[in-house]
């Protein structure tokens, strides 16, 4: 059996901007949540 079956898949360069966007959005959302709780004095 090959490792992994049929070899490694082709990298998907078209998805890279989406992955970066996910990370940026998560960072912004976490910052917003943190700021939200700070603003309302949690």
């Amino acid at each position, binding site marked *: 059996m090959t490792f*992994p*079956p049929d070899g490694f*898949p082709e990298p998907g360069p078209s998805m890279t901007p*989406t992955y970066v966007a*996910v990370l940026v959005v998560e960072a912004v959302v976490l910052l917003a949540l943190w700021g939200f709780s700070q603003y309302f004095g*949690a």
Partner: protein
Amino acid sequence: MHIIDWLIVGAYLVWIVYDGLRRTTGASAVEGYFLANRSLPWWAVGLTVMATQMSAITLVGTTGQGYADGMRFVQFYFGLPLAMIILSLTLVPFFYRAKVYTAYEYLEHRFDVRTRTLASLLFLLSRGLQAGVIIAAPAVILSIVLGFDLTLTIVGIGLPTTIYTMFGGVQAVTWTDVKQMVVIVVGVSAAVVSLVLGLPDGVGVGDALSVAGAAGRLGTIDFRFDLNETYTFWSGLIGGLFLMLGYFGCDQSQVQRYLTAKSVDAGRHSLMMSAFVKIPLQALILLTGVLVFAFYLFQTPPMLFNPVHESEVRASARAAEYTALDAEFQAALEAREVAARDAVAARSIGDATAVASARAAFVERQQGVTAIREQATSLVREVTGDTLYTDVNYVFPTFVTTQLPVGLVGLIIAAIFAAAMSSIAAELNSLSTATVIDVYRRHLRTDATDRHYLRVSKMVTGFWGVFTSIVAVYAANLGSLIEVVNRFGSFFYGSLLGVFILAVGTRRATAPGALWGLVGGMAAVIYVAATSSISYLWLNVVGALAVFVVGMVVSFIWPSTTADL
């Protein structure tokens, strides 16, 4: 509940079953029945991925968490976006390229049939039982809040779901999930709007949130590194990452969703939808619970939100004790409302000293209310013998049925049904797939026609529907122990994830290594869970690492007899 609300819930159930049954034309062969011929658009798959994850107990439990504990539960999801990216880069393309029906089928490609079968049986065992709990938990709550027979409620959730899943296959699951996700989001949004409009004159949303913040309900991020604390930034980011990798990468109920996408990129995009939306959506649901808390600062809430347990105490020898507590509670509520209004008034003036003083007074009153609720909870536990009793899951349904207008009640109860049914449908569909593809077609009947396998697949789906409903009837009698059982499934994810890490992460892992690694990982999780008090999120890390270490050691000692490279 008003007759109009019952009609809305009934119409929703009929509509969903009808819509699901319309999809039977796509289920004329096994690949169509289980994978929709790998033809679905990314956005539909993305919505079914989210609908599958959001069970009814997630919906009512999360709002209850927001009410009782605030928003810190949102940290549970911090690892999800990272997990989605990692899976998109690793397992998703491997699954597509191997053209598998189940995640476990891939393990036979990479290792051997024993590893595949063991992993599939672990899934069937844990998910088969958990699916029963997913029906039972909301059924118990809805039957109590609506005053409806428990068994009929279980049948009301389980039967329609089984019918459309059995006949329509994954097409029915996906397209009903899409609509159910819309119903859920509309229902939650309507609740938020109602809560905002329900605040008293002179109290704005900012005021309500400010008071809720003073009561500790808006703490979202806890940077302490404490293994025993369930929800922290680190447990969510690291433990949650492993949990989500295991859930979305190794649990057939999720893997099967994105295997229906029409291409690798469509599958990846469907996961990206959750990566973008899940944390904000969960924050919104938690915020709904926080707004319910703010709402009840100015309206009278019940001391306990579970009327059945309350009735039991009132009928017991300690009824007088409970009545005295209730009187104290009413007085404490009145004092808290005055303090909350004072805090709002101080905020509108803008004097920092007055605001701090008013907030401190409010916090003191809030602590008084909390202390009485805790005494009442202890009393319930002592009288009923249910030592795990908590009424958190009853908060939102009680609010909905007692405070919202006719029509909206039906819509939100339908949303709770939608959350339950969308998860159960995916469970039944994936349980059937693993049973037929990994067990029946692989071991019991290897040479039958596609028509035969399709007939068996429908029968097996029906079997799992009946089985999980029967489990639900028994699980409903577990009381608060349901919560424990609900977490039980997550004990398996770390170990299953470890096997997949061995599969795609290293060339040196062999079939014996994977098999014994899986056994070793399960043993490690059971040992750590039994002998320590670390948060269950960290058990996913323990399981994955243990499988990897044991698997690699065994692989070096015991190389595979077949060529692995």
